[in-house]
């Protein structure tokens, strides 16, 4: 258990969950503060462009509403990633359906990337983003969960609904592609 900034030992996620169940609202604040940025990074790395805050918010609302089903078999963060990933897939499906009915203008697409460019300050970040864009959606998820979030293959398999072996293969293919892309740039 790591010490908190106040010198007290850091409470585990499970302890905070139990405190929240007992009616302590501050425990929820601690849990959200602990995991929200990781969720935002995962969403951004997975290719989400807009509404990342809303996505993170929805993830927590859904997670807290079904916290009784969290048994602690995985870490809370892995469980949150799983929920967030499902929400992202739902969003993409909804976007695909809306694109089928309302075609997106090319100018909209450009302005979307223009907004993103504002967020990406450094050239290295832009290069990395482009290299990740070259990956398949699953490769991208596996790679970012492994490299940026430090999840094990077992945890990644749980998040993406796959096997450890498949996660390993996706990772190796992804690093090969990213390496080649960054070399060529």
């Amino acid at each position, binding site marked *: 258990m790591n010490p908190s900034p106040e010198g007290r030992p850091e409470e585990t996620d499970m302890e905070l969950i139990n405190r*929240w*169940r007992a*009616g302590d*609202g501050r425990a*929820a*604040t601690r849990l*959200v*503060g602990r995991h*929200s*940025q990781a*969720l*935002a*990074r995962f*969403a*951004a*790395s997975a290719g989400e462009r807009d509404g*990342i*805050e809303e996505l*993170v*918010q929805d993830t*927590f*609302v859904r997670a*807290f*509403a079904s*916290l*009784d089903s969290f048994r602690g078999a995985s870490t809370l963060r892995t469980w949150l990633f799983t929920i967030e990933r499902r929400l992202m897939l739902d969003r993409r499906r909804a976007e695909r359906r809306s694109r089928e009915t309302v075609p997106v203008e090319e100018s909209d697409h450009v302005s979307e990337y223009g907004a993103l460019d504002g*967020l*990406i*300050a*450094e050239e*290295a*970040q832009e*290069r*990395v*983003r482009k*290299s*990740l864009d070259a990956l398949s959606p699953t490769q991208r998820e596996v*790679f*970012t969960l*492994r*490299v*940026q979030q*430090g999840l094990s*293959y077992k945890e990644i398999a749980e998040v993406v609904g796959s096997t450890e072996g498949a996660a*390993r293969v996706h*990772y*190796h293919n992804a*690093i090969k592609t*990213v*390496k080649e892309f*960054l070399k060529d740039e």
Partner: protein
Amino acid sequence: MNKCIDSDIQEMLPDLLHRALSDGERQRVEAHLATCESCKEDLEVLRTVKSAAVFAPAIDVNSVVRQIPPYRKIVPATERPARTRVASWLVAASLAVVVLGGGSILLQSNGSLVSRSRGQQPALTIAKVPEATKPSPLEPVPSPRIVQPTIAPHPHALALAAEADGLSDGGLVPLMNDMDGFDALPASEPDPVISVDSGDSL
């Protein structure tokens, strides 16, 4: 540059970045990195990717927390397990078999006792055609085979539905006794001579 074939080391590189290796594993990986250019390059790529993961927007924790509903314990529905339900159905089915079977045996034994005590003829005699139901001389004469006891109407049976409503308990007992002796199904398949009834169309 030769590609490294030590997949164990390659897979541990992200863990090295996240300081998730034990001391022994870290020393092994670092020793390998000192001699392997390919893995060094991989590690540099991973460092770049990891450090680039900062463009996600900052999340306002308080606004997220405000949206979280208060805790409500989910009470599981008090549905009985499937095994209990199956057992209940089996018990109910067994009871039904016992009640129906026992009841019909009781009724049968009562009927035969009453018949014998009254000195009535056995059940088959009930199927005899009474005089009133015999065809008139104007009607086509049926062949003797039609007048088989198994297909002839019972004298009580025709009036049974009409009379049953008006009977008291005492009146119902002999009627039911008669019914017990009544053969609802023929002992054998009827012969196709019933076609004689088609005399209606004449």
